[in-house]
């Protein structure tokens, strides 16, 4: 038995338990994963030329991407302690630091995700009713055109018309670029944590793929929730089913690696296998966030009627909870000496 008392540290601001990263980081990792998931699905559907079949994934769901990225970046920014110096991130590229190339990737993907939404804005605007407040803002960029019976929106400026035509002509090239950027963002949210060898729970290679798969799963859930097309819901429900299975496999794989690993990894696993995070991880995240949606989606596939909103909500809430647990537990579990 070893008991360590740290004295000479009757120092209020030096905490024996690290909690320098809190909820903003968890929220950012969740929103980044969600944005990455939606971007990857929208790109893959475009590359496979199935835009008509899965229109929600390509046209509606990507509206979430720039919003999620902007909110996520806002959380990331307020978490910086020396916030006025944030521009220093963009004075250098340091490949060894995941935060550095992650920041550069986000700088590229955020404006591009707005371009993606703008590409399909003309198609989706007529499906909404803008009789209220929003029409004033839209009229800065659009003119209403009532020529063929229904209300159409046309770009107000000719360079926007040209730009839209250029983007739509090259949309598969654009989709390939977005696919690569989406995967980088999805993996980055995991690698950000796994780069720290001082935090035994985070320092595992599985975390990158696990965060990517979890991000994809939340992306699929968002698309299911937004879609009205039965075939599209069924397709993304199937994809999500597969992703949840991979996620479960990776989680078991991670725990096995911990248990079979060196002392410090086994110690980390103890927090999830009997320790303080056991209930919240296995019951709330794995149970409610993965297994229940898995069962509901299976029932949907064999023909039962399932309210898809509940499935999507459980997956999204589970994804957020997973990141909160990982960020929190990672900082509790440290090297013992």
């Amino acid at each position: 038995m070893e008991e360590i008392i740290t004295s000479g540290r009757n120092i209020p601001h030096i905490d024996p338990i690290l909690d320098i990263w809190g909820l903003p980081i968890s929220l950012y990792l969740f929103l980044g994963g969600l944005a990455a998931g939606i971007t990857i699905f929208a790109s893959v559907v475009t590359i496979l030329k199935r835009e008509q079949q899965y229109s929600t994934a390509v046209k509606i769901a990507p509206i979430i991407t720039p919003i999620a990225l902007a909110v996520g970046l806002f959380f990331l920014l307020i978490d910086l302690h020396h916030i006025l110096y944030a521009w220093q991130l963009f004075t250098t590229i340091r490949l060894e630091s995941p935060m550095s190339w992650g920041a550069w990737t986000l700088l590229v993907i955020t404006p591009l995700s707005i371009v993606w939404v703008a590409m399909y804005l003309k198609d989706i605007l007529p499906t909404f009713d803008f009789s209220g407040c929003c029409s004033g803002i839209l009229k800065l960029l659009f003119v209403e055109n009532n020529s063929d019976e229904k209300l159409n929106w046309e770009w107000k400026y000719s360079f926007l018309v040209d730009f839209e035509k250029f983007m739509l002509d090259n949309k598969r090239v654009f989709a390939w670029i977005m696919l690569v950027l989406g995967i980088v963002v999805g993996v980055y949210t995991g690698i950000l944590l796994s780069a720290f060898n001082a935090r035994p729970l985070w320092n595992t290679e599985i975390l990158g793929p696990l965060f990517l798969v979890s991000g994809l799963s939340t992306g699929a859930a968002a698309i299911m929730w937004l879609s009205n097309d039965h075939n599209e819901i069924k397709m993304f429900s199937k994809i999500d089913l597969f992703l949840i299975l991979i996620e479960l496999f990776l989680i078991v794989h991670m725990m096995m690696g911990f248990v079979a690993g060196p002392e410090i990894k086994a110690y980390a696993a103890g927090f999830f296998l009997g320790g303080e995070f056991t209930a919240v991880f296995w019951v709330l995240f794995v149970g409610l966030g993965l297994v229940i949606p898995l069962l509901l989606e299976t029932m949907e596939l064999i023909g039962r009627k399932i309210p898809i909103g509940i499935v999507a909500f459980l997956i999204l809430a589970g994804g957020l909870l997973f990141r909160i647990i990982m960020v929190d537990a990672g900082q509790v579990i440290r090297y013992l000496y």
Partner: protein
Amino acid sequence: MRYGMVIDTLKCVGCTDCVVACQTENNVPLGYARDWVSEAVIGTYPELHLEIRTERCNHCDDTPCVRTCPTGASHVIEGGIVKVTPNECIGCAACIESCPYDARFVHPEGYVDKCTFCDHRVANGQDPACVSVCPTYCMHFGDLDDPNSEVSKLLSTRQSKVLAPEAGTKPQIFYLI
């Protein structure tokens, strides 16, 4: 040239003079500290072993804090001393997460602060403040590359250990046991 510290755990009484000396020398803000004293009680009663040691940044050879810093604010200067440039630091705390010794903290002004081995004193040929005030002379500072330095001689004649060697950071503070 490789600066390092050798600390005799058999002589340390845990008086925390080193902590106060550091806070005074480096104007460490109230409520924060760059070094601290740990007391580790090992074993079960009545077979107990007490180890008292003063801890700080280990100025590692393999520095995860410098590796994960996104702006290059964390850097290594001559002699292997790890420092932070406040005007380049964005306060993201990646280096705090990457340190197995929890040696870094966020200064109230926003940047990350840590032990500097008192490089301003070392440049004038003086010992760091913590070493110079130790009443039991349990701390020794010097060049680990020089076989005739006090620290090298202590390491060659006495048994020593480093903290969390399995973290792979190659720490340069050695504890005589």
